[in-house]
């Protein structure tokens, strides 16, 4: 089963993502902040990570950068999910190595399609 870690501090969105991904057959671990996301990646060894950009403690951009700097996770697919939709924000997202960037408000169906597309690209 394909494993996904979600880091999102808004409980409603986090639960929605968990619900949709489980419904779609994924094995999901959900956390509410950046440091917990790094812990979850270390323990769960997921196939993909979905990161909210603005989280307490450590932003999704920082988490993504950390993942890219570690040998074990440098190729781990990352999708950033955020309300920051300016061109410069999107540029920053891709600048830290994200594979895709989804802005809120988002379509849950579109997000799932992007998850599948990113996983297909890396051959999962």
């Amino acid at each position, binding site marked *: 089963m394909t494993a996904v870690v979600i880091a999102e501090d*808004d409980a*409603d*969105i986090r*639960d*929605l993502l968990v*619900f*949709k991904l489980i419904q779609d057959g994924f094995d999901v671990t959900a956390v509410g902040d950046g440091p917990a996301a790094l812990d979850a990646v270390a323990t769960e060894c997921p196939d993909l990570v979905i990161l909210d950009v603005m989280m307490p403690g450590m932003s999704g951009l920082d988490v993504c950068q950390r993942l*890219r700097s570690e040998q074990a996770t*440098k*190729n781990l697919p990352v999708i950033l999910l955020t309300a920051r939709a300016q061109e410069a924000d999107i540029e920053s997202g891709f600048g830290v*190595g994200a594979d895709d960037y989804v802005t*809120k*408000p*988002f*379509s*849950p*169906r*579109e997000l799932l399609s992007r998850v599948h597309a990113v996983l297909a690209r890396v051959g999962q």
Partner: protein
Amino acid sequence: MNSVGSAVMLAGAVSSLVLGVLITAHHLTSARRRSRREREAQRLRPLVFRLLSDPGVLPELVALDRRAWAAVEPTVISLLGNVSGAAREPLVDLLTHRGVLDSARRGLRARRARVRVEAVHVVGLLRSREDLPRVVSLMRDSRPEVRVAAARTLGGLADARGARPLLGGLSCSRPVPPHVVAHSLLALGTAAHPVIVDALRHPHATVRAVAAEVLGFGGVVAAFPLLVRLLREDAELPVRLAALRALARTGTPATAAVLIGFVGRGSPDELRIAAAEALGALGDPAAADTLGFLLAEEPHRLAHNASRSLLRLGDHGRDILARVAGGSLGPAAAVHAIEALAWNQITHERLAAAARGHT
């Protein structure tokens, strides 16, 4: 101590004890209520999530009793603000069936500011354009948080009729912050552009500046002549800077020549610095030679921006930097050119390494 004193002390102690018990009881009751509500919300959330792709569960949610609905309503409203596409419709249906829009309409007239803020937020989320006049009237509310919520809702309603009241919110005695107005104006789309172009002639400087920024972000080419006039003639520097940034974003073939006219020593430093940066954002190679000469100019920020803008012009810009780095314009200009080329190389290598590591 006499008996009166003892009685007063005893009464005080009893009062404190009773008050303590009451406060504790209140906290316990509130905590229990919150915990019950959270359990109820947890139980019902999956049903709300199912609704997003299965409208068949709508009747079940519509039929929830008052207590259960109170537990899950915040989740429904939060989701409505965060999802788009087909997932929105069932949430709007649910809230309409539950009478949330009617309740929000009543809330727009509530005495408590917090209720008015929540109500106008819900009206915006539900995109109820028929409530636009009432939302507009809240732009003049005595409380700033209500005015800000009303301005955001006018953006959410995406109705061009909101443009004038939004611009009016910048120049009245109870103003709304410019960034809130700008954000909402951008959400109104092309139908609002004529009103925003007109606002470039407004007597209030903040209105002219915000209108210029919004037209720049919208890439409204029709505003070009007026933006040029603002840049050349406006009495307020912030308005001229806003016009300059807008011109760079609009990006017509004539823009580079206009901006180049403002990097010379006859312009205020703030304009020269902004123009040097804007020429890079514009990306017109016609600006390359001018930017090259700016490397030898003061202040430092002007030369720095010119060097970074040259990098954005591609090979021609890098060739000029290489020439200046060799000393063609003197040592101070060479330092800027060398720094820019080094920064470019480091960035290029970092991106190349990231790309290699990621494949």
